[in-house]
């Protein structure tokens, strides 16, 4: 007989783990990641790789500085920084300088995550915040839209090289109601200017979404609510029912709705709280898009992140069987 182990109840536990969830997110990101490389070329892969490695190294170095043992760091490594790294990489414009992911990654991991206490303690999404940090610091680079083309990976045809154009993405004309893009183009991401490597191919993103839903990593409702509410609000703002599809298919909305906004740490903890959160996020996104005339998804998510504690403080489920206390009827004489 071996040594018997003492533990608190329950003595059996589910198979899920933080590590497994994070690996699932990485797997779900793969299709969009691959399509990003197909559309934007090897440089996009390089950017994502730099971002990924920077984020992991930033976490490890930070933990070493605060005195963790390397053995413990490896044992406790939960892949959250890898998710942040890949997300940040896929959030970058495909033509931006190589040092942006390094700066962004260090900022996201060290300032946003580790200084607040590491995994689970960051009250804002590290990848989104890092992206916004880069947008504010390097505005000219971060608004350099990439022009996706299938030939970007192996440019045999000289006409099919991808070129960086500084200007509007597909979203700009759509917001002004003057877009010539077909919904199919927007859906596949072909020929659409993109401000981020990962946001282009909606088919790939939806594949990732289906995977996450099947693996029960995210609730299927939340991205749908976010995307749906945004689309509806755009229809209302533009007064045109045809604005629904182009407005949800363009920009980073679907990418953000599936992978960025659903980050556990920065969303409420109850189903009702999440519904409120994602609906408000949708309204805010549509409103800001309408007023600014440009993509605002990341700002909206960052902004709504601050409201999560408030939502969780006020939307608390009533215990099972709870009845509202009836006002005591005083014995009137």
């Amino acid at each position, binding site marked *: *007989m*071996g*040594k*018997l*182990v*003492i*533990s*608190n*109840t*329950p*003595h*059996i*536990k*589910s198979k*899920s*783990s*933080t590590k*497994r*969830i994070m690996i699932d997110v990485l797997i779900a990101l793969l299709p969009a990641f691959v399509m990003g490389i197909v559309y934007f070329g090897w440089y996009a892969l390089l950017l994502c790789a730099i971002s990924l490695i920077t984020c992991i190294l930033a976490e490890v170095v930070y933990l070493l500085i605060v005195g963790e043992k390397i053995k413990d760091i490896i044992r*406790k490594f*939960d892949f*959250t920084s890898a998710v942040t790294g890949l997300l940040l990489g896929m959030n970058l414009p495909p033509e931006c300088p190589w040092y942006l992911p390094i700066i962004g990654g260090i900022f996201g991991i060290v300032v946003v995550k580790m200084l607040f*206490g*590491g*995994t*689970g*303690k960051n009250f804002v999404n590290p990848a989104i915040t890092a992206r916004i940090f880069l947008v504010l610091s390097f505005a000219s680079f971060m608004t350099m839209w990439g022009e996706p083309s299938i030939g970007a990976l192996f440019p045999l045809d000289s006409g099919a090289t991808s070129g960086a154009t500084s200007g509007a993405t597909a979203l700009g004309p759509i917001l002004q109601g003057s877009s010539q893009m077909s919904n199919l183009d927007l859906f596949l991401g072909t020929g659409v200017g993109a401000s981020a490597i990962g946001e282009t191919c909606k088919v790939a993103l939806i594949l990732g979404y289906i995977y996450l839903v099947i693996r029960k990593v995210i609730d299927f409702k939340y991205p749908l609510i976010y995307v749906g509410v945004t689309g509806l609000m755009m229809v209302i703002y533009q007064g045109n029912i045809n604005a629904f599809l182009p407005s949800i298919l363009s920009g980073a909305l679907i990418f953000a709705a599936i992978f960025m906004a659903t980050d*556990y*740490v*920065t*969303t*409420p*903890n*109850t*189903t009702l709280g*999440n519904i409120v959160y994602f609906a408000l996020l949708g309204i805010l996104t549509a409103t800001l898009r309408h007023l600014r005339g440009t993509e605002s998804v990341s700002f909206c998510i960052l902004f709504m992140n601050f409201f999560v504690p408030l939502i*969780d403080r006020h939307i*608390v*489920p*009533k*215990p*099972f*069987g*709870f*009845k509202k206390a009836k006002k005591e009827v005083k014995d009137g004489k």
Partner: protein
Amino acid sequence: MSITKRATFLRGVHVPDNKYLTNTKPIEVMPAPKLVFISMSQHIGKPSSVVVNVGDRVKKGQLIGEEVGFISASVYASVSGTVKEIKSIKTPLNTATYVVIENDGLEEEEFLPPIDKNDRQAILDRIRIAGMVGLGGAGFPTYVKMATEEKIDVILINGAECEPYLTCDHRMMVERPEGVVLGAKYIGKALNCDNIVIGIEENKPDAIKAISQIEGVTVVPLKKKYPQGSEKQLIYACTKRKVAPGKLPASQGVCVFNVQTAYQSFEAIEKNKPLYERVMTVSGKGIENPKNILVRNGTPYQDILEYCGGLKDDAVKLIAGGPMMGKILPSPQGYAKKTDSGLLVLDKTEVCLEEPSPCINCGRCAKACPMHLMPMYIDLFTKTGNYERANSYGAMNCFECGTCSYVCPAKRDLVGSIQYCKRKLRETRS
């Protein structure tokens, strides 16, 4: 079988039940051991007072510990023989007075006198005198539960047995369905209620079938979900009534009894036999021969484990009760009690030995909590010492089913935190 929507409660979690180890094995009668150690506190409430002396000869079914006060229960000898010792023994679970009886193997019986089976009060008295307690694991004296002022219109028999591994109630329903239903009818008679409902999880189709063949009972097949067998959740599943926090089921006109409580009540009334034995499941991948066995009260765990072939080398956890709410044993020291529904030996493929990691706010615990609490915040505020704030997320309503800890991907000991918080809150309130 027709496909119908199974009754269930809101939230909860699907746990692999692992009942295949024992659910087809008939109840075996375990031979009485040489020595029995009968505890005087096998129930919730005051310990019984010993009424025998060292050297006395006792018969099987003879009173050895008498109830003291309102919430208490009598204890009976489970073998015939000589009282060898009366002493306080410290086991990993508690410290209590034990009566040690040396079995002479003669199996001489001394049961209770017969009663008028149509007399309400006589049935109530019999259930009290026979030392009946909730055999599902709580050990709350049955007659106290029955001494309610409320009008009871549903007698609910709990055949959910939602704890993984355990199959003792299951086998009871398959092998002795008449006894279970008759016992429930007697309880109903004592409470002036002839509406007998029994809730059984769908993973026990043979039990559903066996009970359905008996007249005068409504069988409610339940969805397999944990914690289906918890009182409030079971009441909701079977009757759609909600028992408010801090209220007893009687407030909704329901009284819930475990399958074996019903069966033992039947034996106490028809056969005049007091409660001195019960069926328990010995299971898990760490034991050689998993079994359902009828065990005498006071049988040492060591003897039970040996009877089932002993522990395998890779056994890592020994649990009294089910794997979700059962108590962990650091050693096989301990003696069978009225409330022991199982003795589990789990190996390392079954248990989780991962250490806790930081909470990632996934919200799964809140989504699964059958009481609709927010365990992650109770944990957080308990750890920071803010117990009142923790209670605003429902700490005191927790019945420690373990669903939150089970689903937690970070493997946090949420139940432990909540237990600590409850203790602290009780300290400050008293």
